């Protein structure tokens, strides 16, 4: 007997892949239903290694799926629901066409519904998996919460998105999980750390809705994504609330309900508005404190002690960040975007309020004397309170990114703001040259260091440097005083020198030698496989360090030269006009910062 003839593409890559059309045929679904199913189940097209074989010899480029993936879809129970939808649509269409309204209503009241709970569980077996994939979900939900009802976007979807996102923000506030914030031209970037997972999302700017181009984005697809993501976010919220000892449909106990207000709106709307206000603490199921911060393991073998030290420092800073605005009272002027600012302030323990007519949920009045910061985004105001700072909203964002309260003087009302830097920069940046001005912006503590360095470096330049500072800061007297204090301190320190003891004689270079030796030994442990990579890495590092050194040197020389120049000029100018100079210099400084 002759062996059975082997057919082409019955094994190997040809048998592993399936075109989209074949998949449709196998699943007996329409293209729209198939796309919906794929999005919900998380099945995506694949790229084959050998396209010609995968397409069974057909030319062109087709959308291919794994046969296994399609088989996986085949077992999904919601496929029947999708088929039910088809039948439902036919029935409804017919009833409408023959104007059988009784039937039509009956059908519409009993429409099939997709239940996606089990799919959420299936795609994200653990809660952490869900948190890891929350970026997309949050960004889309925040975006859709701003949408009106559109074609392909059901009316209730945007309402649901709004509710869920607000609930999520409450959870972040309660957990004090926010870490980084950034205002870009696209929207607000937020980064939170929930259970050790960083979650980043973008919130669109609150301007009026702008219509999207039809050709650019397929709304139907995005709406399907949102359909799944709302369910994911709902369950995540539920879990988060229970973890934080909160009631899940959120409840309030501490709202003083005005009689008049309560008459106006019904109970649900009332609560929903308070939630949207973000300004009331939610009521808790128990008063247990949720311990999230984990102690960093002291016996960590594979990491160097410096790294552990660094991690510990970071953790300490994060701890400080959580109570950054504690004890501060903010008032938002009406031109300031309310939602992001309230969220940030409340995340770090601040109290906030706004004009009563702006939005519900304001807690105190503008005339409250205990307000410490009044956030303003206009060049000037008529009424001023002496007891508070009038600052621009960027101060909040920059303070959060610096993880400490920045001096307010650069952010006063009408002031030209210092640049708003992105906190989302890669760690590689420490191997790049950063000009001292930028370094000062990134970390406020460096500012003093930098200035001190300058003072110590060029002794002759010293007083001129100070003069320059005066120019740039305009009328900041406090800062200068601080600086002079620092100077005195440093001089005092020099006098109090410690003489080495005589009993214990330590070779000064011994320790560093030991360390170097250890380092070399550790270097030897690098696997042969990675040796080349390691070598090139180190070379690169050295090169970059050299570059930085060179640029710093150039800068120093340049500064010195400049200082010399200005010194000469000033001496001439001083002789000519004494008191008028200062104002002029101040305006000059402003111009400079404007250019920057």
């Amino acid at each position, binding site marked *: 007997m002759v062996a059975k003839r082997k057919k082409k593409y019955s094994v190997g890559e040809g048998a592993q892949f399936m075109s989209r059309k074949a998949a449709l045929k196998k699943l007996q679904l329409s293209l729209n239903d198939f796309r919906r199913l794929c999005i919900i189940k998380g099945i995506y097209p694949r790229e084959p290694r050998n396209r010609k074989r995968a397409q069974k010899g057909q030319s062109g480029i087709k959308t291919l799926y794994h046969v296994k993936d399609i088989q996986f879809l085949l077992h999904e129970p919601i496929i029947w629901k999708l088929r039910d939808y088809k039948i439902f649509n036919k029935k409804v269409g017919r009833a409408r066409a023959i104007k059988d309204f009784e039937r039509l209503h009956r059908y519409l009241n009993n429409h099939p519904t997709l239940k996606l*709970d089990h799919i959420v569980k299936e795609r994200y077996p653990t809660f952490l998996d869900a948190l890891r994939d929350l970026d*997309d979900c949050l960004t889309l939900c925040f975006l859709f919460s701003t949408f009106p009802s559109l074609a392909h976007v059901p009316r209730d979807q945007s309402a649901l998105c709004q509710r869920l996102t607000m609930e999520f923000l409450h959870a972040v506030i309660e957990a004090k999980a926010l870490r980084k914030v950034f205002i870009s031209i*696209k929207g607000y970037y937020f980064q939170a750390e929930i259970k050790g997972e960083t979650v980043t999302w973008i919130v669109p700017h609150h301007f009026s809705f702008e219509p999207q181009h039809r050709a650019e984005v397929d709304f139907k697809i995005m709406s399907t994504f949102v359909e799944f993501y709302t369910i994911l976010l709902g369950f995540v919220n539920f879990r988060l609330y229970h973890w934080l000892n909160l009631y*899940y449909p959120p409840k309030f106990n501490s709202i003083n309900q005005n009689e008049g207000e309560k008459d106006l709106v019904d109970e649900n709307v009332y609560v929903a508005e308070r939630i949207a206000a973000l300004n009331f603490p939610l009521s808790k199921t128990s008063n247990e404190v949720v311990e999230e911060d984990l102690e960093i393991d002291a016996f960590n073998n594979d990491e160097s002690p410096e790294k552990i030290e660094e991690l510990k420092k970071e953790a300490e800073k994060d701890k400080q960040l959580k109570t950054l605005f504690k004890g501060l009272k903010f008032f938002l002027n009406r031109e300031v975007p309310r939602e992001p600012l309230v969220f940030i302030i409340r995340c770090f323990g601040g109290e906030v309020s706004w004009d009563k007519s702006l939005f519900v949920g304001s807690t105190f009045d503008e005339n409250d004397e205990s307000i410490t910061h009044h956030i303003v985004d206009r060049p000037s105001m008529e009424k001023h309170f002496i007891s508070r700072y009038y600052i621009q909203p960027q101060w909040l964002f920059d303070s959060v990114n610096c993880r400490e309260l920045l001096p307010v003087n650069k952010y006063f009302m009408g002031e030209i*703001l210092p640049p708003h830097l992105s906190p989302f920069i890669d760690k590689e940046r420490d191997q790049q040259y950063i000009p001292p001005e930028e370094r000062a912006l990134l970390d406020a503590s460096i500012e003093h260091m930098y200035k001190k360095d300058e003072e110590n470096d060029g002794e002759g330049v010293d007083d001129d440097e100070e003069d320059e500072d005066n120019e740039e800061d305009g009328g900041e007297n406090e800062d200068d005083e601080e600086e002079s204090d620092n100077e005195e301190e440093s001089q005092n320190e020099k006098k109090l020198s410690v003489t080495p003891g005589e009993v214990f004689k330590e070779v000064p270079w011994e320790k560093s030698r030991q360390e170097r030796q250890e380092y070399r030994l550790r270097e030897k442990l690098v696997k042969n496989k990675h040796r080349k990579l390691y070598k090139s890495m180190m070379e690169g590092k050295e090169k970059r360090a050299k570059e930085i050194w060179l640029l710093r040197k150039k800068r120093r020389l340049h500064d010195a030269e400049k200082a010399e120049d200005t010194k000469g000029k000033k001496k001439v100018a001083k002789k000519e006009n004494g008191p008028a100079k200062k104002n002029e210099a101040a305006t000059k400084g402003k111009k400079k910062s404007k250019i920057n």
Partner: protein
Amino acid sequence: MATLRKKRVSKKLKVSWRKHVNIDDVEEFLEDKRLEERLGPIESKSDNELFKLDTQIETRLSAKERKKLKALKPLKCYHALEPHTKVPDPIAKRNRVRTKEERKNELIKKKEIANREKGILKAKEIQSMQDKKLYEIKKRNKPKKGDFNTDIWSEGSKFEIENDEWATTLTKKHNLKGVGALQKTTAKSLSKKKSLHPSIEAPHPGMSYNPSYEDHQDLLRMVADKETQYIKKEEYLTRVTRGMFNKVTPGKRDQMWMVEMSEGLPDKTSAEDNEASDNEYSAVNPPVKNKKKSVQQRRKQKEQRELELKRRVTKIEKKKIADIHQVKILKKQIDRSDKRQAVVKEKRIKRAAHKALEPNRLSSTKFEEQGLEFNLGEDIAGNLRNLKKEGSILADRFRNMQKRNILEPSIKRHRKNAKIKRYTKPGHKDDWKKTVAK
């Protein structure tokens, strides 16, 4: 002659009789009579019944009033059921099928009432009540959209084994077989991320609403670089496509086409000449002749073949001996090829790493990266109030998903204008008699 003469017509048939005899007066009489029958004789009616004194001014009713009046009347749909005439039904006592209720025995009726009072119900009624209850429960428990009241990540952990983090799924499956706790496993490849790209890319520092000068310049430079790249590519494409061809007028193009297409066709004049010159049959390829080889030729061929074989064998043998002497050279060769292969391998690894960052080719349209959003220098206001928004988050998400191999890149084809269905009216169709039959 002016007198009108009646035309004589035959009244032979019933049809013609009916057609030509005037019976209007008879019919009128009969109609009157019927009317009298319906309404009663006029003489018997009093004046009040026949006439009415119009004392009120005619008022126009409002739409609402008219509607109200109309609502008082019986529905028009029952009009057909009412008798048309007032002639009483000639059959005084009509038989009618009695209803089920009427047909029931009096005793049974009494018993049923008594039963109901006692609370004894029929099986059918009990069933319907149960069904109603069930339906209501079902309707109440129907999950509402946006209701989340379970923790899906901790529910269904009735069994201790389920939550055991040390037990493998296989162990769990084995131990939980048949207890109702379904252990569903999904392929690992499904939970794996499809791309190395993050879902939210870190924004370029120059995209800040109030960027530092360097960052902003850096961003602008990046954007400009990309734009110049595009321009360069487009220029190149036009150069190698449109730029390669000479431009000619349509007239000349047609002429050229004519010349090109008629290339190789027999010229009219020359063809005539050829025909005139010789009438003999001739082809381009002359027919093949099967020439046989002679025995001698075959023998010589065979000898040559054998010789060739022998020569080849000896050559191989010789080479074997030579190779022994060439071990060193061979080793060098192998080393060289090994080195080359190592280089190629390294390159391949590098290329794979590079390719992992690029989006997969998932459909016939290629993914195109959207440019970075940027504000021009004059658009930067430096405060939140006057911020100029750039870019759409929705489009950004859409592209990002395409980049992460979640969506296949596609061009959405959409109609600019609504689709118009065109058809000809039957009256405007061609007359087949005129067009086809002729």
